[in-house]
């Protein structure tokens, strides 16, 4: 009995209908646009009667919408393995050898069985990775903590762009600790590009001796890896995802690297970030302390990168001097044209 793998093209209405019907049969029911849109490729597994008996998709480097029917399956697990294997080979041909999957706890074993490794786990679900460069290689690439450093802290920021508020948070941490590691979110979906955000944070903190800046890699607040498709309620999805992120940070970053605290700013406006901070406070202690620093205010208003982006959009450059350190101001002045062009082209300035 030979079952064949074929590409399944979701832009064809008929294929998509068949695909959705099959997934619904297997208990996957969320086809929210935010989940389906990022899919790059979908494979279908067909039996001898040309019936769809399995499917899996790839979005970036994340495996999604994987489901198989066990009716008429030769060996338990063979269809699942065949689908994952085909997805991996296709990715390898494109030069991508590192992939992630979010899934329910019941599938942990199935994925570990084919070489995936669990990065973090919560009651609702878990995140696994396979391939290279993996978490160990990422950790090895980071700056090493000085041997004589006692109190150490981590800060994770997007810095879109780097404001006086970010600078204040770093200063607080640097005063209270021997060594501070600042992780810049790697995902390149913000107004300011990752390289620019890295450069702004580096420039803006280079005068503080006990601070190092590192790229957050694939492991820090990577909203790309959104697992909402198997969770109905969006708030619950955010809670689950942020809990996973907190677990991952604790187990794979803070503890192995010996970082004793994480500094966060209070969050007065963004609902998602407020939920995220809540989860951090719940999950990180007691091994990793969470220090919440009140946001730096200017004329009674908390400084936020969002205000800066709005000001840029409204061409109110004069108001920026109060919100941004010299280093970021210089950067914006030199690159003003490129940034304005991005906004004109419709780059989102809301969100994070």
């Amino acid at each position: 009995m030979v079952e064949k793998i074929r590409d399944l093209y979701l832009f064809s209405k008929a294929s998509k209908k068949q695909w959705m019907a099959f997934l619904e049969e297997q208990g996957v029911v969320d086809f929210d646009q935010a989940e389906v849109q990022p899919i790059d490729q979908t494979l279908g597994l067909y039996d001898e009667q040309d019936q769809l008996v399995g499917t899996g998709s790839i979005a970036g480097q994340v495996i999604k919408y994987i489901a198989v029917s066990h009716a008429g399956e030769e060996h338990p697990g063979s269809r699942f393995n065949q689908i994952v294997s085909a997805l991996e080979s296709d990715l390898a041909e494109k030069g991508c050898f590192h992939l992630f999957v979010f899934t329910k706890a019941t599938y942990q074993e199935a994925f570990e069985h084919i070489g995936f490794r669990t990065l973090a786990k919560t009651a609702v679900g878990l995140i696994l990775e396979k391939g290279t460069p993996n978490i160990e290689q990422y950790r090895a690439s980071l700056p090493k903590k000085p041997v004589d450093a006692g109190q150490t802290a981590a800060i994770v920021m997007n810095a879109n762009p780097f404001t006086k508020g970010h600078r204040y948070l770093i200063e607080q941490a640097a005063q209270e600790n021997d060594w501070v590691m600042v992780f810049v979110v790697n995902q390149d979906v913000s107004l300011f590009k990752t390289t620019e955000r890295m450069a702004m944070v580096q420039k803006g903190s280079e005068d503080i001796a006990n601070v190092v800046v590192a790229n957050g890699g694939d492991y820090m607040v990577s909203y790309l890896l959104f697992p909402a498709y198997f969770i109905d309620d969006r708030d619950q999805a955010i809670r689950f995802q942020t809990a996973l992120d907190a677990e991952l940070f604790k187990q794979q970053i803070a503890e192995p690297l010996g970082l004793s605290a994480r500094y966060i700013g209070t969050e007065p406006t963004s609902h998602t970030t407020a939920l995220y901070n809540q989860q951090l406070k719940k999950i990180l202690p007691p091994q990793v302390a969470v220090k919440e620093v009140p946001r730096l205010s200017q004329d009674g208003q908390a400084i936020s990168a969002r205000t800066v982006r709005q000001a840029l959009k409204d061409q109110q450059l004069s108001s920026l001097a109060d919100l941004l350190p010299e280093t970021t101001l210089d950067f914006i002045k030199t690159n003003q044209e490129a940034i304005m062009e991005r906004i004109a082209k419709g780059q989102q300035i809301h969100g994070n």
Partner: protein
Amino acid sequence: MEIKQTALAGTLESSDIQIMLSQGEKGIHFDLTSDVKKQFGEDIMATIQSVLQAYDIENVLVKVVDKGALTPVIKARAIAVAQRALDLKDEPNWEVL
């Protein structure tokens, strides 16, 4: 020889083996997943190692997911992945074969 690019060969289907080679430091390092690791883990690694040595690959990370492959299959997949990793796909090394 040095690994030029990360490479993958084989599948996760029954009786097959999936091998991935990537750049490593100081020797050959294995990460093996197999249901029969206890019984045949050493043999599987030895088979792959002999192929790697035939290609003069000294520093490499070898990620292996075995699904009960027989020795000739292991050898074939190891040769394929070595050729890909060394970017020698078009120049088969007959002496290894």
